[in-house]
């Protein structure tokens, strides 16, 4: 079975996790136009490559960030939001 490293609980089976979609910076809801908000909600590049994603460890209720190659399914790093390691990982382009 495939495994994922939860930053709080260590390596766990993938079946304990939920995928939360690509991480995107939220624009200021008060200052953004309707189009900017729609772009934030809906539009994305989504071509394969290394992506920053939200994942959720369901038994412990932990949301965290995974950097994952969506073409090969390799997970390069997992960490809590805001705790980005000075990573060995290249920033997603």
């Amino acid at each position, binding site marked *: *079975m495939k495994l994922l490293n939860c930053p709080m609980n260590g390596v766990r089976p993938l*079946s304990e996790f*939920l*995928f939360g*979609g*690509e991480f995107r910076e939220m624009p200021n809801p008060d200052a953004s136009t*309707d*189009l900017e908000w*729609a*772009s934030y*909600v*809906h*539009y*994305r*590049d*989504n*071509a*394969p490559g290394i*992506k920053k*994603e939200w994942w959720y460890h369901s038994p412990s209720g932990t949301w965290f960030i995974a950097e994952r190659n*969506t*073409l*090969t*399914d390799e997970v390069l790093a997992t960490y809590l939001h805001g705790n980005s390691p000075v990573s060995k990982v290249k920033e997603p382009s």
Partner: protein
Amino acid sequence: MAYQLLKYALGGEYKEPRFFRDCQTPKKSYDAVIIGGGGHGLAAAYYLAKDHGITNVAVLEKGYIGGGNTGRNTTIVRSNYLTPDGVNFYDASVKLFEGLSTELDINLFYSNRGHFTLAHSDSAMRTMRWRAEVNKHVGVKSRVVGTDEIAKACPQMDLSCSGKSPIQGALYHEPGSIARHDAVAWGYARGADSMGVEIFQNTEVQGIDIQNGQVQGVQTSRGYISTGKVLSAVAGFTPRICKMVDLKTPIVIHPLQACVSEPMKPWLDTILVSGSLHVYVSQSSRGELVMGSSLDPYEFHSTRSTFDFVEGLTSHIVDMFPFLSNVKIVRQWAGMADITPDFAPIMGMTPIKGFYLDAGWGTWGFKATPISGKTMAHTLANDKPHDLIHSFRLSRFEDYELTGEKGAASVGH
């Protein structure tokens, strides 16, 4: 028959004509270029030639004809959707499918089976009633049926599903059918080719040339082709093509898996779907049970298949049909499904002049093959979207006019 075979075997030269020409060198320019030689792209090429007289068209296929999602789906054709726009659109497709074997002069093995969407809970029954009423309202034959009618149509099924999730009723959709999916692509390819469309297999698009917001041409592995109109009909590869033109869409790619059992004598007449058990199943004309489940749970651009899938799916199949416990699975595979947030396709114009999109086909693409080809051909020829696809436009997301087509996929949503 045997004599014919023997004559071929000894005769040397194979005398059956090819389905379409083996094109190798593209011309310098075409009136339109279609990226993707699946059912949708080939149907669009066919109707461009047939309905609009536009025959100077190239279809570019990275692999081989019908080797993508056209040959990976579970071949179900139906129109029992939830929104009037969706029901009208898929109903037009079913009607085209019904006459398609004759039109394309190829046996699609189009087989009208009737389609049951099983409901195991009160809330599922409520959705079935809703869908039935919308369907009836626009003239599509769907109705809610009780367990007696289900038992009559499929006496082999354990209506209690091994006691775990008893069936309360179902949405019965009479026009529900299955067809030979690769034959649809081959039929459209032959039809388009005979009218002058050129089909290039093993031809990859590497870039799309845009100047001043207008498409100028396409860079391919067989050289540069200039054209003012490009249609992208590439399903799971849509984000990669869109990246070439710097177009963002809401499409996310998830693998969708399916499998078939060993062949059996015919026993399952109908198509059965259960949203709660994440199962759909029908028996093909070869006797195999064709089975599918819900999407893989996270984004992944690959056609790898997993043991998790077979294990989960077959446990539910055995809940429904305990006597199948000794039947073997002989093949499994996956396709890349291009999923949209509202489970409706993205079709029509884009902000880039001359770049048209036929995408977002997720788990509902095969049944729409004829109508998507027809409406996209109309859209390309007139540079104006066809009326039937207005609500599927890309700009619906920034207009905050999503379709809400939750009845789209039978399973998992």
